[in-house]
């Protein structure tokens, strides 16, 4: 099997002077080439930290304390800064949630794209110019020549996200990490950007790791879905199974929370009560139990492990385990310790 990316029991902690807070706990998943995986959850569940760790951009305080990340055959968690840099922007590119602030305000668009080209395609400043314009055209920017000479502030949010995508495509990446790429955009523009990402994927064959809390985007884009809650993977399935038969109460809650636009009348979306627990204050037992409608005694005391309940569908929930016939414990999902 052609595995592009593998996260193996990854644990990430943020260290301050006095304490260590575990933001990502024993997260494992694998990605094939050309595949789109959606990493889903509310803010604070660890999905952005996971994606930044793949880029090696956790910052000064974030450390991988346990487990490893393998990319294209190498263990990149043991890479030094120089090796990591060769990967960034070339093999793995990333686009972010805030297109308005993600571009350098005092550099021309063409220059910012050109920088990637010079870095990763080893071309000269002069050679980079027409390629940058070409990339802008490819991401659907009209008047690409003029835009290349422009500064970011004169572009709309949607245009800036297109520029970000053009920049990401400059290195012909094998993996594109898209962290909430459409959350800050208007719905009309959101649809354009998603379509563009699909188009780019079709042309280049890259894999996309889509980090989002918007299940509409997930349903549109993903092949497989990984649902995260409080730093752990709580459910993993292909997109059709997940929406048809969500087994974790958290996944069910996320789906029910989306307001319906079709159908008549005012219909209430069902919220998930409460909020994501803070890293310093993880509940005992199943981390979701304080917000779970169907929590029972066992959930409050014992932490469930991630178990396969059929095909490629895994769930971290006592109720789901008992209802399926022979749950099979996944390697690497081990007994889960509480902090």
């Amino acid at each position, binding site marked *: 099997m052609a595995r592009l990316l593998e996260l193996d029991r990854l644990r990430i902690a943020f260290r301050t002077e006095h304490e260590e807070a575990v933001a990502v706990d024993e997260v494992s998943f694998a990605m094939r080439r050309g595949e789109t995986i959606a990493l889903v959850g509310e803010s604070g569940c660890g999905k952005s930290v996971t994606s930044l760790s793949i*880029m090696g951009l956790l910052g000064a305080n974030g450390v991988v304390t346990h487990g490893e990340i393998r990319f294209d055959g190498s263990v990149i968690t043991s890479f030094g800064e120089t090796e990591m840099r060769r990967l960034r922007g070339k093999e793995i590119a990333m686009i972010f949630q805030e297109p308005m602030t993600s571009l350098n305000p005092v550099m021309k668009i063409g220059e910012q794209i050109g920088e990637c080209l010079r870095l990763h395609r080893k071309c000269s400043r002069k050679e980079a110019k027409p390629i940058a314009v070409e990339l802008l055209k490819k991401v659907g920017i009209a008047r690409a020549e003029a835009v290349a000479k422009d500064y970011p502030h004169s572009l709309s949010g949607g245009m800036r996200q297109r520029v970000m995508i053009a920049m990401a495509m400059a290195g012909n990446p094998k993996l594109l990490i898209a962290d909430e790429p459409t959350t800050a955009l208007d719905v009309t523009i959101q649809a354009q950007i998603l379509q563009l990402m699909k188009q780019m994927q079709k042309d280049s064959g890259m894999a996309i790791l889509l980090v989002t809390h918007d299940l509409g985007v997930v349903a549109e884009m993903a092949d497989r879905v990984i649902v995260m809650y409080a730093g752990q993977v709580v459910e993993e399935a292909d997109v059709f199974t997940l929406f048809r038969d969500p087994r974790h109460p958290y996944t069910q809650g996320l789906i029910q929370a989306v307001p319906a636009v079709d159908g008549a009348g005012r219909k209430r979306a069902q919220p998930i009560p409460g909020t994501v627990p803070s890293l310093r204050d993880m509940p005992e037992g199943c981390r979701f139990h304080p917000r779970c409608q169907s929590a029972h005694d066992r959930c409050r005391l014992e932490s469930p492990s991630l178990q396969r309940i059929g095909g490629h569908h895994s769930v971290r929930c006592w109720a789901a385990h008992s209802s399926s016939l022979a749950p099979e414990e996944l390697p690497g999902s081990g007994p889960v310790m509480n902090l």
Partner: protein
Amino acid sequence: MGTYIVRRLFIAVPVFFGITVLSFLIMNLAPGNPVDMLINPNIPKELLELKRERLGLNDPLYAQYANWLSGVLQGDLGYSFSSYAPVSRLIGERIGPTLLLAAASLLFGLLIAIPVGVISAVKRNSKLDYFLTGITFLGISIPPFFLGLGLIYVAGIQLKWLPTGGMTTLGGDGGAGDVLLHMILPVTVVGAAIAGKKVRYVRASVLEVLGQDYLRTARAKGLRELAVTNKHALRNALIPVIAVVGAEIPLLLGGSIVIEQVFQWPGIGQLTMEAILSRDYPILMGLNLIAACVVLLTNLLTDVLYAAADPRITYG
């Protein structure tokens, strides 16, 4: 941009007028006048009165001002009361050295402040940062004249490495090398004061930029950390510094009075001091005029530079 500059210059005219009126009034409010300052008791009272009459000091204030203003509008700054030399020549002779000292000090100060500020910000809360911050505090808290005297004593008198004052060696050739040698001490003193004040601005400004999303983008491109800081962060961080530096320039000229005294630098500062002591109104008014020009022009220059550095700002 052109129309903007023209508009700003238009606005400057009434401001300019106001400044001259105010400074004329304040100057005349100060006790004493040029004639009183001639403290030779042998001069008879009648002569003094005659002199007063001739200098126009007995005219009403508005007439004196009108007289001065009409001269200025014709390009005539008047004559010194004490040396009878034309004010424009006196100032013209002195302004060169002052500008030289100010420009060199500013350059030197920024050459220290920017790298130190950047390093301090990038290595924030490290031992190096604390050390640099400590030095910076010293730079701010030691008064320039004190540092100047200390340096004169050590480098000039004890070690005899550097000249202690003046701009050229008496009887020397007065060449560029000689001037440069004379500049080292005053530039060090003034530059250190500037650096001390600016390091903290640069540090704060870089720190703010370091948290911006576009730096994460720059890192995600695979740029080296050095390129991230120097290319992406610095250009953005220096934009607010432009304004602070612009505001520094008029202060620099004001501060030259003390420093030029300490180093006997033949600049405007010394001229100012002499003119104040002898209540030489025409010279003082001329200097005021220059100061007003400097303030208005540096403000304009700051705004223009701002727009040049930050594409988000446009004047039209």
